[in-house]
């Protein structure tokens, strides 16, 4: 009865009005036609911004931001190997590779129209070093930076460093408009670490000479650039670029397919294969990122167990080909040493191989014929398309074949770090992406040389047990030589690091570039992630 009354009230005269309202509502909520011909470029990404201040920032999204709004003296060419001029039109290096003189491009201007001068370079480098922010290590060893004249800068370093120019191609070595930054609390002198108050200003403003300027930033929501109309180089066809926060691969793929975004940056190969839209291009390209397992023989719960023979046995027990299939569906490559494939010195390094028989033999010789049990603590994350949980399950399975049991303990990132800096973790899983093109960064981080982070973690309270003196000597020689000679030393360091069996690279995952087919110039860069200014609409 109640239903009949409701129906009766909805008389026929209401029907046209309802139909009109429905049509209007449908039209209103139907998404507009998006990407085609728009001069706004929208990029979907799960952002990891820690700061927008070049001297404090240190993240993948930061590389995209900094390379769009600032410029470095030199930059990485599209071949991802050679360095090409950017703010510096040319540069000279003394034979000892201790003095570097840069000649600035006379046309270079900041976004406010003022010229880029040697004083800005001097100020930016001194601030990067003195601020003691995350990327300060790039200039470790710089003893002086001198403005020879308005357009010439000379940098001196403590000892030979053939990789110095590579280091300053990192986006964090961006040149800042010093006058503007000083006005907003930025400090470059020795007191910078405590006296600089400009970080919040950098979250809302940029002060560079890049093709874009910062138009707005809302943490974990969007990062918006506006075209720098004063840019002295080739201007972007896009008046606005928006990096919009889209958390996961599936949502990014959906946003790309629906036309809400032009580029999706973190789609995994499986999700890419599931997309059915024809106006989306997907390219799978090799990356320089890698995921590895690391041993800490000096960890409190592993003392005496993870001897060199045992570490070698564990490395030999891993099914590296199966690991690629299991973690990234074959969309990745094996990596021999902690220096990624394609970097100087990696050609000809032996690929890791599984050898269960030899692994068992080594384990028996080391006094563990029946295996042993260890704990593996690692961040509960999915990085570069690799689920660390899945990866460690595969390791667990492989090691079970030689009688070694690992207790998997995925943790939140802060808890994992707490344990790593505390008593140490016998077995862990971590990841690495390059800051610039150069093998030195891997030696400075992974080599078993006194003072490197991983020598400290691996050795724990007895670092001398893991230190490999050959690596420090070879590194000094690599830095004192250039070109092929330098690469040959890095190759020897690579072999030594393989022998160390502390860092075991498991997967170098491929990257999926997924973008609307009307775009051109989308590519992966080892320094800058996604060079936005190279992107155009066809």
């Amino acid at each position: 009865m109640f239903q009949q009354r409701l129906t009766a009230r909805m008389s026929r005269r209401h029907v046209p009005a309802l139909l009109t309202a429905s049509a209007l509502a449908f039209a209103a909520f139907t998404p507009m036609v998006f990407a085609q011909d728009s001069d706004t470029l929208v990029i979907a990404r799960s952002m990891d911004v820690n700061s927008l201040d070049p001297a404090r920032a240190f993240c993948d999204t930061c590389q995209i931001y900094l390379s769009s709004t600032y410029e470095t003296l030199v930059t990485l060419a599209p071949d991802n190997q050679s360095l090409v001029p950017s703010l510096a039109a040319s540069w000279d290096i003394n034979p000892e590779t201790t003095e570097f003189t840069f000649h600035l491009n006379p046309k270079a201007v900041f976004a406010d129209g003022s010229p880029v001068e040697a004083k800005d370079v001097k100020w930016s480098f001194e601030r990067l070093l003195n601020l003691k922010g995350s990327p300060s290590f790039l200039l470790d060893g710089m003893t002086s930076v001198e403005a020879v004249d308005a357009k010439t800068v000379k940098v001196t370093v403590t000892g030979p460093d053939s990789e110095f120019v590579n280091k300053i191609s990192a986006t964090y070595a961006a040149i800042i408009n010093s006058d503007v930054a000083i006005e907003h609390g930025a400090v470059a002198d020795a007191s910078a670490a405590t006296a600089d108050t400009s970080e919040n200003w950098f979250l809302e403003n940029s002060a560079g000479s890049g093709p874009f300027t910062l138009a707005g930033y809302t943490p974990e929501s969007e990062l918006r650039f506006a075209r720098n109309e004063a840019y002295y180089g080739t201007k972007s066809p896009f008046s606005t670029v928006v990096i919009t926060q889209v958390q996961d691969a599936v949502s990014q793929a959906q946003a790309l397919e629906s036309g809400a975004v032009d580029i999706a940056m973190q789609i995994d190969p499986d999700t890419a294969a599931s997309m059915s839209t024809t106006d989306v291009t997907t390219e799978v390209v090799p990356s320089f990122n890698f995921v590895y397992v690391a041993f800490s023989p000096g960890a409190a719960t592993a003392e005496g167990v993870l001897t060199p023979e045992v570490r070698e046995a564990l490395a030999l027990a891993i099914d590296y080909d199966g690991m690629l299939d299991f973690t990234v569906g074959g969309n990745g490559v094996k990596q021999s040493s902690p220096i990624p494939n394609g970097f100087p010195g990696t050609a000809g390094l032996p690929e890791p191989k599984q050898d269960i028989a030899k692994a068992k033999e080594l384990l028996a010789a080391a006094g563990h014929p029946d295996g042993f049990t260890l704990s593996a603590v690692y961040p509960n994350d999915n990085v570069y398309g690799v689920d660390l949980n899945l990866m460690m399950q595969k390791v667990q399975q492989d090691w079970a074949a030689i009688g070694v049991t690992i207790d998997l303990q995925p943790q939140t990132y802060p808890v994992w770090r707490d344990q790593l800096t505390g008593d140490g973790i016998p077995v862990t899983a971590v990841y690495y992406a390059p800051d610039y093109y150069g093998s030195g960064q891997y030696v400075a981080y992974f080599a078993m040389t006194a003072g490197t982070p991983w020598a400290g973690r691996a050795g724990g309270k007895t670092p001398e047990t893991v230190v490999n003196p050959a690596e420090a000597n070879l590194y000094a020689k690599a830095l004192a030589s250039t070109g092929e000679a330098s690469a040959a030393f890095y190759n020897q360091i690579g072999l030594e690091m393989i022998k160390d069996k502390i860092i075991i690279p498991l997967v170098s995952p491929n990257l999926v570039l997924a973008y609307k087919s009307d775009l051109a110039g989308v590519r992966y860069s080892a320094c800058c992630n996604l060079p936005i200014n190279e992107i155009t609409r066809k």
Partner: protein
Amino acid sequence: MLRYLLRRMVAMPLLLLGIASVVFLLSQVTKGDPLSALIPERMMSNEQVVATVKAQWGLDRSLPERYLIYMGRLVQGDLGTSFSTRRPVSTDIAGRLPATLELVIAAMIFGCTSGIGLGIIAARFKNTFADSAARIFALIGSSLPVFWSGLILLFIFSVKLGWVSGPGRLDARTEPPPGITGLFTVDSLLAGNMPLFLEALGHLILPAFVLGWSVTGIVTRLIRSSLLEALNMDYIRTARAKGAPESVVILHHALRNALIPSLTILGFTFAYLITGAVLTETIFSWPGIGSYAVSAARSLDYPAIVGVTLVGAMAFLLANLVTDVTYAFANPRVKLEG
């Protein structure tokens, strides 16, 4: 009533300070490296960087010192600076709260109206197909995980059919309306920008539906059971005996009483969704408080954790107060006494 309200209003700041103390101290003793949001993993072995950052953020001080400094600032309204975003927590919350409020209000409107409607139908046509259909719809709404229903509905209605807009509060190519309330639908109307209003509404519909569907489930079941109970009461029999139409009996007599028990649940549901809409916010890239809370917790961002907790606590305290007052108005037998 006035004395009751005054007493509750006076107690509220004290309760919030107590909650802030507990959360602050708990987060300080939680296992984890507080520098993880401040220093990247690669730099955590660099003693100079670690010392500089600790000094900058006051992490080199003792726990009692940190507590006193924090509480001293809190009573002045300063929630501190987020480790992750490097911005004042109050700025972060002020930027995100309107997004959550807009989503939660829309979800509550959808959830309540559909829940009440379905509850009435289910009670009125008890044990019929209509009852079963309403209850199944409600059951699905309360049991389907949001991350699944959100993704599936987005795929069908946004990607495949193109009927609704995709993730986010607006298309990324659109400039937001001038910030007056922070609620894009309201601000676009205040700015007289109808196309922008429709775009904001188009983006709001799907996440509000997904979030509101779970509310529909709760409300439908509550209304159905309350209404069934009310329909068996003597005063309903009297109304029917007097010849009142069935719609009047249900809407004017039975529903008014059946709504009273739902008020408490609705108040708490609203407060819960303020910080509990995290999955919906994540799936729909909705920059609200829930996703901020999760991000803060994951990175041990103490100032943000305490800030979000205070917002959540405030939401619960206010919802509780509003529920109590509404309850007193709706049910004359309830007296609020100081």
